[in-house]
């Protein structure tokens, strides 16, 4: 990987070399740029009257969701269908995984049934690496435990670039606020946004930041090739002040039972993204949320639907970015280039 300083002046890459996409940690900046450019093309397709191309005609995409998430699953399946792929959905409630079949056996079965790209959501960190070890096709991570949610981070990045003048994150202040400890969205965003050169701030109650400061300290010297440093704070005002982008994360009720938060009321009083707090951010700052939102808890309802909110853009861009990733993983990109070269 190259350094941030040189990354964004690197020659654009045109080839995709990753068999799987499990996290953005191993994806170089030029490769991220390729994903963004491919997503641009996909967005063009989505703007047409008929939002369907034959790129993945006859290719088989299987979604395997061990954790219910209708919005994410539908986003992946819409992306796959827009590319004319055949889509099979497997969810624990309707399959043998509830009977205790192992992940490895399930993946082998799905491969035997013809799965070529496996989109996977799992509650245990690292589960897609296990799937990738036994799967002959491509694994696309749809979120694993607290670890990673690469398609979300990439659609977040895409949305930020689309909404920031010049489409450049370098030096732009991005504040992510909420339950950082349990958030795969935050972890993947750390990799992609520090690669993009953003001034990243992670903010939440101290109980929901546990361990993150050790990560920030480890990176504070700028020793990680291709990635800058980032900040961790419980000071919401410091996080929001002059921010260009503010992202809220979902606060779950279980956190109270776990003794990590006194109450949702208290969280809202101290950390909710509301109009008053957002006035600290730069004029024109955008507000994001990966969904699903708890309006009135981590985000005020009026903020969620205000002009500065790009939350619905995130949903639309999610389809385009996922189309781009399915297209790249399937090798359709290489095939198109080989065709063009003839």
């Amino acid at each position, binding site marked *: 990987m190259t350094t941030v300083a040189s990354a964004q002046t690197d020659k654009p890459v045109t080839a995709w070399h990753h068999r799987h996409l499990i996290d953005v*940690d191993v994806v170089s900046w030029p490769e991220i740029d390729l994903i963004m450019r491919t997503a641009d093309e996909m967005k063009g397709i989505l703007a047409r009257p008929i939002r369907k191309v034959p790129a993945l005609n006859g290719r088989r995409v299987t979604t395997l969701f061990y954790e219910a998430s209708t919005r994410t699953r539908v986003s992946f399946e819409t992306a796959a269908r827009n590319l004319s792929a055949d889509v099979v959905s497997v969810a624990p409630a309707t399959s043998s995984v509830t009977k205790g079949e*192992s*992940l*490895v056996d399930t993946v082998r079965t799905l491969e035997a049934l013809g799965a070529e790209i496996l989109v996977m959501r*799992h509650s*245990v*960190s*690292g*589960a897609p*690496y*296990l799937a*990738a*070890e036994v799967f002959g096709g491509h694994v696309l991570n749809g979120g*694993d*435990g*607290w*670890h*990673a949610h690469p398609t979300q981070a990439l659609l977040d990045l895409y949305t930020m670039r689309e909404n920031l003048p010049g489409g450049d994150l370098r030096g732009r202040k991005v504040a992510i606020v909420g339950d950082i400890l349990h958030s*795969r969205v935050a*972890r993947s965003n750390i990799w992609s946004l520090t690669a993009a050169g953003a001034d990243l701030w992670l903010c939440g109650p101290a109980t929901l930041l*546990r*361990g*993150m400061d*050790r*990560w920030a300290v*480890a990176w504070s010297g700028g*020793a*990680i*090739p291709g990635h800058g440093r980032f900040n961790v704070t419980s000071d919401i005002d410091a996080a929001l002040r002059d921010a260009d982008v503010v992202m809220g994360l979902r606060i779950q009720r279980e956190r109270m039972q776990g003794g990590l938060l006194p109450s949702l009321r208290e969280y809202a009083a101290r950390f909710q993204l509301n109009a008053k707090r957002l006035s600290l951010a730069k004029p024109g700052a955008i507000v994001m949320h990966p969904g699903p939102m708890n309006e009135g808890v981590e985000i005020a309802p009026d903020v969620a639907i205000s002009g500065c909110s790009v939350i619905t853009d995130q949903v639309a861009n999610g389809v385009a970015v996922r189309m781009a990733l399915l297209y790249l993983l399937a090798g359709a990109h290489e095939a198109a280039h080989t065709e063009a070269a003839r």
Partner: protein
Amino acid sequence: MSAGTDGATPGSGSLKIGATVGRFELERAWLVDPASGREGPGEIVVTDGILESVVWLEGAEAAGVTDKGVVVAPGFFDLHAHFREPGFEDAETVATGSAAAAHGGFTTVALMPNTAPAVDDPGVLGRIRSAAAASGSPVGVLVYGAVSAGRAGDQLSAMGELADAGVIGYSDDGAPVKTAKLLRSALLYAGMLGLPVADHAEDSELTAGAEASEGYVASVMGLAGWPVAGEVQAVSRDLAVLVDALGDEPRARLHLTHVSTAAALDLVRRAKASGLPVTCDVTPHHLALTDEWIAGARRWAWEALGAAGVPRDPWADAALTASPYNTSLRVNPPLRNAADAAACLAALIDGTADAVVTDHAPHTVVDKEVEFGKAANGISGIETALGVLLALVDAGKLPLARAVAALTSGPAGVVAASSRTAGIAAAGPRGLTEGAPADLVVFDRSDRWQVTPESMLSKGKNSPFVGRELPGRVLVTIAAGRLAYEDPLAAGDES
């Protein structure tokens, strides 16, 4: 093998496991004898199972013999292993565990009682002894009794009956002794019986749901953290309760097993300095591996330690070479960082840690080929312990004699410290003693071996070293005068 052998002996390939060694001679080897504190060039002769002669070579005769070649040491003693029988024979049996132990150079093992049923009455102990006898292996099998009935942490096990039946101490390992109150009773009652309580020190509330040691690596990988405080809190509790118990029962003794953090080892160091009757051990994996292996790094702990004792960053070093979340690295206590590993080594060298134990914890593929957070805890480690310690020796971090002592006189000393077990053979000096039944291991430091599912004799293939080479090939293990292990190549290449 490179050393001379003769007759119906190891080296000829004609001797069966368990048979008395008729004659075994080894010329110009490096002898390590922790009992006398001596090491150097020498020769041994075993006749009819007895270590007939031990000759130390000097002058011209010793020329060219170094500690980098064939080494003879007393048979190793593992104070902490899980052979899974009865109850989990798919993972290991007393027979397969004994074979694996001998492959690792061990001639005596102490088994933890977390079988099903647990060793909480003499009946279960009898079953384990029968299995050991039936195995044909000469490896000596000692057994801990459970502290609590069913290891449930409520009532005391049949401690007195277990003592009469010959357990060497009590432990609820797999879990800590559940409450301070139960531990106090156990220390008093075990002290009365002249036996120690061996605790797995963990504050289960602080570690509930934990997947990896809390810290940088766990944070990046999204793994729930097992905080250092979870061990420090438990060790503090145990030491406080020990002090309390000693007021009523001066024979109360505490052993802390697989201590893994610098802070907890400091507590033990101070407790020992103040004269408390406490002993402790560390494992090869906590000495040599770190949590960065879970992220995919494959360098030794001492290579992961930066300037000023701060762990290096595997991402900054581009040191991640293997697939992450390998479940053979899921172990309890978890792999720590390089600073804690260095503290384990320092504790071993300064004597705070009395012994190295394997915590050999074999598991089936069914329990390990799953998501990291669902995988069973444990490393199949009894065959790799010597290789890991020799890696430390090769790196200049640990003297060979100290490594051998940690596997021989160290654990023997722990057993010798309790009045009831002070007289048993396992508590003996574990030296190269002429006239005694031969109990020794011969290994070649100039050779290496490939750890593979096939080369491991344990049923548990859950070793982080699978696919890697370790230094030091065990050539022959003789336990109580009988052949326990013989390297297949050494057996064949005599002709």
